[in-house]
């Protein structure tokens, strides 16, 4: 049971709990479609601390809590207030637990949400810690694959782009080890998946760490694209050449299976051409909208 539990890492959620969240998210989707207001969490308060900028994740958490009938308090610039005064995260959390029933944290350092959970008697949800985990994004990604393709087992997932710093990729890859899938990893050399993630994959996990993009496309069911950040490159010409070789265009989509999907945690910059948006394979906006029912499901199961 998820009641009163913190969700810091995707490992905190068992396979059967994931299935429960997916079913609950289906129910929440129905409620949202019907436009019925919910009063499940009437009187409950969520506190959000975003020490790093966020648009989607933050809006999605706050929307979810409001949709459930609860309310949200947040610090608009967490970084410039308590941190500037030298307050430790541990102290911030011990203060916040007195003001709220659940705490959502995004922080630039790995392990921050874990630390917060140690000091809080109220559940903590990790909304991204440095290049570490982003478990609710991962749950939402798994939910999207399941909803779009009818299931996760037996699928080939190809991840392309920044596999080094992209925490959504790290979380998703670790979560996929619980399924019978094939994973292809495609990235420029300087943005390769880190060894500390590869070393955590089971020996018999079907992963190709140096897949060829064109070959992989033909067998791909899910093309998971991530943003390549300009600031990771010292040479801007190198950035332009990388962007050129990894961008997704209508020609890329033509090489893919008819029923395959393209996902992206967003925001996308130049990785996916806007010409792809109208393709039925483009699932990234549907993926983003799944953030609300999935988070509604999770929050209601923790606080319900």
């Amino acid at each position, binding site marked *: 049971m998820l009641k009163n539990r913190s969700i810091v*890492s995707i490992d905190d959620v068992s396979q059967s709990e994931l299935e429960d969240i997916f079913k609950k998210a289906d129910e929440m989707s129905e409620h949202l479609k019907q436009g019925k207001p919910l009063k499940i969490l009437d009187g409950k308060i969520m506190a959000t601390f975003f020490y790093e900028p966020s648009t989607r994740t933050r809006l999605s958490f706050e929307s979810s809590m409001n949709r459930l009938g609860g309310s949200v308090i947040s610090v608009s610039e967490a970084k410039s207030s308590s941190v500037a005064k030298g307050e*430790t*995260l*541990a102290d911030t959390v011990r203060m916040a637990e007195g003001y709220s029933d659940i705490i959502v944290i995004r*922080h*630039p*350092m*790995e*392990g*921050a949400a*874990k*630390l917060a959970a*140690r000091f809080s008697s109220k559940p903590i949800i990790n909304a991204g*810690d*440095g*290049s*570490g*985990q982003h478990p609710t994004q991962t749950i939402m990604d798994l939910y999207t694959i399941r909803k779009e393709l009818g299931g996760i087992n037996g699928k080939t997932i190809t991840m392309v782009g920044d596999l080094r710093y992209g925490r959504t990729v790290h979380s998703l890859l670790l979560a996929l080890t619980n399924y019978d899938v094939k994973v292809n990893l495609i990235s420029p050399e300087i943005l390769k998946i880190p060894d*500390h993630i590869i*070393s*955590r994959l089971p020996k018999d996990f079907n992963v190709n760490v140096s897949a060829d993009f064109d070959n992989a496309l033909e067998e791909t069911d899910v093309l998971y694209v991530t943003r390549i950040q300009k600031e990771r490159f010292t040479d801007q010409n190198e950035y332009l050449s990388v962007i050129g070789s990894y961008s997704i265009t209508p020609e890329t989509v033509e090489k893919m299976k008819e029923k395959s999907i393209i996902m992206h945690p967003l925001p996308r910059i130049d990785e996916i051409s806007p010409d792809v948006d109208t393709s039925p394979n483009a699932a990234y906006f549907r993926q983003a909208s799944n953030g609300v029912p999935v988070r509604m499901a999770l929050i209601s199961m923790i606080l319900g």
Partner: protein
Amino acid sequence: MEQTLKISKIKDGTVIDHIAAGKALKVLSILKIDEKSNNYSVSIGIRVPSSKMSYKDVIKIENRNLEKFEVDKISLIAPDASISIVKDYEVTQKYTVELPARIVGIVKCHNANCITNVKEPVSSEFTLVSKKPLVIRCNFCERNMSEREILGSL
């Protein structure tokens, strides 16, 4: 045993035996034994032939007992080491070091961006993943550390 006789017996103190060959100096640095340690005499055997390990290192320290955190640190770099407590030339206690399942406060996380490396009221904390090869995982940032990285962080 006859090989260790090359180093004279101690009256009171600690013998650390079966240290992997070549690691004795690292053990001394863990115990902070250096040129400023005036209170006890130390004998070191490096690459002493051993029937069990082919070659091993041995350290004998007069008038010095080990704290638990020191034994835990030694277990990380010399997992087969045995420790004998000597009183009046007699071994009164002998045990083999054991790698703890949870390693708290003795290794700094190798990941510079780990929350345990900034001013927060927590000790570093790792879970033992594998003994051979030695791998530990930070309980906060979830990064693995190899033996080489651990040696640099002790």
